[in-house]
Each structure stands twice: as structure tokens, then as C-alpha cells.
């Protein structure tokens, strides 16, 4: 039985059209045609512009008749379009007043903010036609897909091990062994699924995959002449479209299927997908930036503007998206719902999330409607919501981010605390105790679980792990900003020489420090996040802000898997160790008491002496023991686990606490010994059950069974 509203009623310029339906927003395939829907609070007229694919000159321009408008929404069905060879855009007419915040200009062709496919940068790095007035072009997508029963995995947050990955950087290097046409793409990630499984991670966090312009702010290095690009992609062009240049089939416009297919395959292999999303600013920049979409569609609605009409810059990137404006709030919600429902995405990490808690004039809100909406939305109900809980405007909310019981945070204090402790700073043990427990000092008071704390030592911002132990200072000269960019508070230590060295003692210490970092990350309560390549000792030559390099400074070199195989094996072991021991993955905070009747509190602290930690400012030794009977709030049984940390420059004897009778201590890992670990199930008994020597700057993990 046919619908009664699928036939044309008007003909405009030879095109058959009909009044459309406001929902859904964007372009939707309907019987016989396409339903276009777009809204603006302040525009007074709107024209749909249709192009043959890639053509600079429009094919036809269809002014929306007044009778096709409901409220602030214009919608129209256009019949008989060639779906695969049509680009579309809009011209909006309205006031032009800098101070009032209106930038309407009918000369500009604007991309549909709800575009599901965006053309113009179909293949990464191919020089665009700069003379084309319409650079980022909305296209029509087929949104049908056979998921064959796939759905988001809903791995418990505390059971996740996250791997932060850059899509292009992961397989672009020829050493990846990936077919050339698939290097640096979603398809490339697919071929490396066996590697990810061997490593043991169960979630990948993809740095921005929404369409962005790699040529944004591209420039030549003043000295070397290298082309510096927008490589990381923290500058969104389109919130509903996956980056064409990240798809091997992007040149055919099949990026939607390719990414969905990747998600499906990752899910089949027990790996979740988290997207790094950037709602704090867009690629349109400040007053000098281009018209891409929002600026010409509804500038005053979408951007935070000063009373004089300038763009507030809480993102440090030119503009700030007006996230608590009700219209924008809905776009953000629509976007996340779209990715959760249509792409089966398991979670989102929000870049500079504190901006999402500011009101339209920039003031922090006590009860930000957007964050609340996202926390309670039904489609997002099982998605991980992770906030980078600060912004570039001075708001720092680690521990105080408006959470509504749902939001997790990138725990910058974990990163700082571990780094300082590992390099041997004084006054660190008290802080360490908190970080190892999932930071109850930050989260328990508000009733937030350990899994609130995304623990990380390295991330894309800052040094890689190998560089953290090889450089005291950043070396970002290659970025062309005279080493002024990038953070200075790295809490790094070069172990005795700056950069590359052939000194075996220094290199041995660097190896040990890397293993110490990974071991501690994997035995901490909370959710661990590993930076792509840290398991292979990837270096960026001391550059701690490689946002602009499309070359082997950023591309993972897979030859490292051979040269640093033992590091990979160690990291993989630590991950598997964590996943094998539920006592490391509690849902609730420790109670510091025996509530299971085992005779041991759930967690106890020790030092070189059992049952007696040294909390003084000059202490460089710390140990903790987890009672296996208390795993997951005493709901499952696990081994006892004891972790000893010696960041002193001398070997120390650690007296080890006694176990219940019948159990003995076994050595699971020892970064100061060779071998540094024993595979699960093969842990040898500790020679002397009373204690052991822990080498300078090393970590020992024992299991009691």
C-alpha cells in the first residue's frame, strides 16, 4: 500500500518537488526522492542548491516557498535525483550585523550541518580545488546496513582497557604491511584486529573521525619547508559524517559502510569503539575563518559571542560552540544519538568538555542542561561518557565535573601523580595511594565510582611513554612555532641524557621506567588508557604536540614490533593480568575494612615493612595488598595481589605481609628482574615468603594463591 504523500505537487525549474517534512533534519531518502530539512532561528529565506557531484557550478537553485516552512524549519522533497552524483547545499538570507551576531550572506553556499556524507576531501592530502566556492559539500548517504544482530558490547566501564588511536597514524606507515590502498584507514584498522586482540585491549578510542579538513591552517615550516597540516583533526566540519579521507573507499563515497563494517568487526572480536568528539569549537574559526555551515546558517545561535559580536575563544581554537543554547543542545544530542544508534558506537570522549558546561556568555553553569540531557538520554543510556574535564579558558573540573552519576573523567591528576612518583619526586606517596585506588579523594565524596577515573600516563597531548623517559624538555621545533607550543609541565625525566643515547645503563633504566608506568597503570583501580604505540616504545623525538605532522613522526612504525617485542609482551601481559584479576577492577571504592570476613581489609598499605607504609615526604617506597576475597565487593573470589613500588635509587628489602594459611606468594612481574614477568598461570613461588629485594626504580607484583 503506497503512502498518499509521495507524489510531486510543484515543479520548479524543471524539478518536481513537494512540501517536505521537518523530521528528520538533514537529507533523508524517501520513496521517489529526497526530503531536505534545515532550520535557522534568524534566517528569512532559504534556497536549496543542487550540484552535479564535484561540479563548482550549481545545477539548479530551488528557493523554499513560504508554504514549505513550519516554524523555523524549511523542508522540501525533491524527486528523481541521482543520489550518488548529487551534492547539495543551502543559501540563507537574513540580517548582516556584526554586533548583533548575524552573518547571513546569500553569496555563500552552506553545508548541511546534518550531512551524513561530506565531499571535497575525498582522499587524504589531495590538493583541493581552491577555486571551488563550495569546499565541504553535503552528499546523500544510503543509511541501510545489515548489522546481523550486532549491538554495542556494554562492557562494564571498570572492565575496560582503552587504547587511544589515531586512525591514519595506526597503519599509514608502509611497515604496517597493510595493502597500500588501505593504509591509514578504517579498513587498515580492520586488518590489525588480530594485533589488538593479542595486545589484549577491549576498547579503542578513535581520535576525531568526524569529517575535518586536513588542510585547515596548513602552512610550510619556516625553516624546513615541510607542509604542516591539521593531522589530529580536532576541528569539526561535519558532525554526522565520517571522514572520507579515513576510508579506503572514501573516493567512492563508501565511508559510511566502511566505518560501520569496522565497528561490526571490532564488536565481533570483543572490542568496543569510543569516539573522541569535539563539540567545543568548529572548523569555522574566528572572525577571519571561512563560511562552512553554522556561520551562515545561524551564527548567533551556534557560537558564543561577546556583546560586541566577536567570537569567544574558550577552546583556544578561534570560536566556541554555544552548547547550552537550546538549539545547539539538540544538535549535540541528535549527533550522539545518531552515532550510538546508526553506528553502534559504545562511548564518547568529549574534548575540552568543560565548555559544554558554560552558558552562552561563557559563565560556568552549576547544572548544565546539555550534560544533564546527555546523562539521561535513553539512546545513550549505556554509552560511556568520558569528559576531558577542563578547557582552554581556565576551567579545570577534574573531580568536580557535573556528572549526574554517569560521566567519567580523564584524570589529569592520575597522570601528574604517577609521573612525579616515577621520576622520584618527594612528597608523592600520599597522592599515589589515592591514584592507585581510583582517586576516592576526587570522586568518592560525590558518590562517583572508581570507573569515573580514566587513568592515563600518556595521551595524544604530551610525550609518548618512550619520550617521557627520554626527555626532560619538549622539543617541538618541527611544529614551526619556535618550541613555544605544547605543555611545559611534563613531569618527565630523561634518566640521565636528553634524547637518544647508546649508554646501556640509561637505556636499561628507561626500559624499566616504561615497564613501571605500564605495570602501575594496569594495577590501578579505575579505567586504564594506553596511548597507541606505547606498547612498542614509539617516540616522537621529544615533540609533545605533534598535531600537525603527517609523516613518520606520527605514523606508527611496525618494525618496532620486532625491535621492541619484549616491551610489547610485557604490556600485553599486564593487560591480560588485569583482565584476569577482578580484584583490580572494583565497581565501588575500597572501604578500607574487612567486610567479607577474610581477616584482611579489602586494601592495606605497606612499605619496606609489612603493615607499615612510610607516608613521609621523603618516602620513595610504597606497597599495597588487595584481599582476593573482597574482589568486586566480595562477589567473586580472586587471588591476593601485592604490589611493591621502589622509586628510590637504591635496592630495598620489602617485608611482605603474610597470607592466610595455605596460600603462598608467587611472582607475577618484576620490572627490575629478567624475565620481567611470568605468563598467567606460570608464576613461580616467591623464594622467601617473608620478603624480597626490590631493585631501585622498579615495581614488583605478587599473586597470593
Amino acid at each position: 500500500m503506497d503512502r498518499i504523500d509521495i507524489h510531486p505537487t510543484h515543479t520548479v525549474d524543471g524539478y518536481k518537488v513537494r512540501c517536505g517534512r521537518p523530521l528528520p533534519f538533514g537529507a533523508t531518502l524517501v520513496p521517489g526522492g529526497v526530503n531536505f530539512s534545515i532550520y535557522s532561528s534568524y534566517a528569512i529565506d532559504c534556497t536549496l542548491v543542487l550540484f552535479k557531484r564535484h561540479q563548482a557550478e550549481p545545477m539548479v537553485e530551488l528557493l523554499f516557498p513560504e508554504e514549505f516552512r513550519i516554524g523555523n524549519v524549511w523542508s522540501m522533497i525533491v524527486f528523481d535525483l541521482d543520489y550518488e552524483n548529487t551534492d547539495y547545499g543551502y543559501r540563507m538570507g537574513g540580517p548582516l550585523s556584526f554586533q548583533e551576531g548575524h552573518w547571513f550572506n546569500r553569496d555563500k553556499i552552506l553545508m548541511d550541518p546534518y550531512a551524513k556524507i561530506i565531499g571535497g576531501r575525498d582522499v587524504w592530502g589531495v590538493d583541493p580545488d581552491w577555486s571551488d566556492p563550495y569546499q565541504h559539500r553535503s552528499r546523500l548517504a544510503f543509511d541501510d546496513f545489515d548489522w546481523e544482530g550486532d549491538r554495542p558490547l556494554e562492557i562494564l566501564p571498570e572492565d575496560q582497557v582503552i587504547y587511544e588511536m589515531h586512525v591514519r597514524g595506526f597503519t599509514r606507515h608502509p611497515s604496517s604491511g597493510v595493502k597500500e590502498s588501505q593504509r591509514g584507514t578504517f579498513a587498515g584498522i580492520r586488518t590489525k584486529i588480530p594485533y589488538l586482540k593479542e595486545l589484549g585491549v577491549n576498547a579503542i578510542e578513535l581520535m576525531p573521525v568526524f569529517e575535518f579538513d586536513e588542510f585547515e591552517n596548513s602552512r610550510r615550516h619556516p625553516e624546513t619547508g615541510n607542509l604542516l597540516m591539521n593531522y589530529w583533526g580536532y576541528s569539526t566540519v561535519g558532525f554526522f559524517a565520517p571522514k572520507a579521507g579515513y576510508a579506503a573507499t572514501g573516493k567512492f563515497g563508501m565511508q559510511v559502510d566502511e566505518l560501520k563494517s569496522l565497528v561490526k568487526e571490532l564488536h565481533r572480536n570483543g572490542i568496543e569503539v569510543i569516539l573522541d568528539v569535539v563539540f567545543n569549537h568548529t572548523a569555522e574559526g574566528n572572525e577571519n575563518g571561512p563560511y562552512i555551515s553554522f556561520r551562515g546558517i545561524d551564527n548567533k545561535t551556534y557560537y558564543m559571542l561577546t556583546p560586541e559580536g566577536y567570537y569567544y575563544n574558550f577552546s583556544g581554537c578561534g570560536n566556541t560552540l554555544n552548547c547550552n543554547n537550546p538549539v545547539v543542545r539538540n544538535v549535540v544530542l541528535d549527533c550522539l544519538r545518531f552515532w550510538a544508534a546508526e553506528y553502534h558506537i559504545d562511548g564518547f570522549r568529549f574534548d575540552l568538555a568543560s565548555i559544554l558546561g558554560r552558558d552562552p556568555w561563557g559563565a560556568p553553569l552549576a547544572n548544565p542542561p546539555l550534560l544533564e540531557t546527555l546523562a539521561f538520554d535513553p539512546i545513550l543510556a549505556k554509552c560511556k561518557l568520558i569528559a576531558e574535564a577542563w578547557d582552554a579558558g581556565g576551567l579545570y573540573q577534574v573531580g568536580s565535573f557535573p556528572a549526574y552519576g554517569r560521566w567519567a573523567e580523564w584524570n589529569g591528576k592520575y597522570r601528574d601523580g604517577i609521573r612525579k612518583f616515577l621520576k622520584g619526586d618527594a612528597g608523592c606517596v600520599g597522592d599515589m595511594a589515592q591514584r592507585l585506588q581510583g582517586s576516592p579523594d576526587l570522586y568518592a565524596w560525590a558518590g562517583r565510582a572508581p570507573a569515573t577515573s580514566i587513568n592515563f600516563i600518556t595521551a595524544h597531548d604530551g610525550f609518548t611513554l618512550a619520550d617521557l623517559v627520554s626527555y626532560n624538555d619538549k622539543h617541538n621545533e618541527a611544529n614551526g612555532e619556535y618550541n613555544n607550543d605544547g605543555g611545559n609541565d611534563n613531569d618527565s625525566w630523561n634518566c640521565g641524557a636528553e634524547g637518544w643515547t647508546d649508554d646501556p645503563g640509561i637505556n636499561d633504566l628507561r626500559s624499566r621506567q616504561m615497564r613501571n608506568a605500564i605495570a602501575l597503570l594496569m594495577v590501578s583501580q579505575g579505567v586504564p588508557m594506553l596511548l597507541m604505540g606505547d606498547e612498542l616504545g614509539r617516540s616522537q623525538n621529544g615533540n609533545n604536540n605533534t598535531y600537525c605532522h603527517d609523516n613518520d613522526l606520527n605514523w606508527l612504525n611496525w618494525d618496532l614490533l620486532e625491535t621492541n617485542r619484549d616491551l610489547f609482551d610485557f604490556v600485553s601481559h599486564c593487560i591480560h593480568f588485569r583482565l584476569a584479576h577482578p580484584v583490580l577492577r572494583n565497581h565501588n571504592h575500597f572501604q578500607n575494612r574487612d567486610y567479607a570476613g577474610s581477616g584482611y581489609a579489602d586494601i592495606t598499605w605497606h612499605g619496606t615493612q609489612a603493615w607499615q607504609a612510610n607516608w613521609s615526604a621523603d618516602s620513595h617506597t610504597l606497597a599495597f595488598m588487595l584481599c582476593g576475597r573482597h574482589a568486586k565487593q566480595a562477589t567473586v573470589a580472586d587471588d591476593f595481589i601485592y604490589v611493591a613500588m621502589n622509586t628510590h635509587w637504591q635496592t630495598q628489602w620489602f617485608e611482605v605481609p603474610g597470607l592466610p594459611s595455605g596460600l603462598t606468594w608467587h611472582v607475577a612481574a618484576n620490572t627490575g628482574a629478567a624475565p620481567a614477568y611470568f605468563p598467567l598461570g606460570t608464576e613461580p613461588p616467591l623464594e622467601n615468603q617473608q620478603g624480597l629485594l626490590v631493585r631501585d626504580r622498579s615495581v614488583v607484583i605478587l599473586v597470593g594463591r
Partner: protein
Amino acid sequence: MELKLQTLTANLLDTQALTAVTLITLVGDIDGNTAPGVQADVLAAAAPDSKMILDMTEVPYMSSAGLRVLLAVYRQMTAQNSQVVLVGLAEEIRDTMEVTGFLDFFTTAATLDEAYGLLQLQPV
């Protein structure tokens, strides 16, 4: 977009009984424009309970619409209890189908002989 039709005979492997195999050769791109025609023509040439080989050697390109129509047609034929094998996919097309998730839905063969084998047939 052209269709060439041939009926071949082969022996069923288990009984040696003579069986007809419909060989459909597609020629040209399969995209949004040609797809409806392909769908109509292939389905017209297909019969229930039959063995079919779709020769793709002369198909240089399939678009998103093309992949979808091919899958729809394939499913319609197999729903009629027919067995269908795709032969001769160019490497680039095969890669495209693999990374977009379409490849797994089809039975494919590199050569006609391999296709016969998959259909449990032996060329006469």
C-alpha cells in the same frame, strides 16, 4: 549495463546427473543509474531451484547502490532456493566489498572451475 545469458550443462558431482547452470555475464558499471535495470534483468533470467553463476569479470566498478542491488538480487535468488556464485571480481572491487562488509554475504569464486566446484558440479 548489458547482460549476457548462457545456459551450460554440467554433471552433478554426487550423481553424475546432467544439470543446467545459468551463466549470467554482467557487462559495465553497476551504479545508481544502471542498478534498477540490472535488478530487473537478472531476476528475469533467474529461475527458482537453479544453479547460477554471475560472471563479474566485465564489471569494472560497483557503487554503493550497485553493491546494494547486487546483494538484494543475490538474496532474492537464494530465497527461491537457488544457489548463486559470483565469479571474476576484480581485485579492487573485491577489496571494496570486503571493507564495506558486503563480501561476506556472497559465495564467490576466483575462476569458473572453482565456481563449478562450489555448486557441486563437474564440467562435462
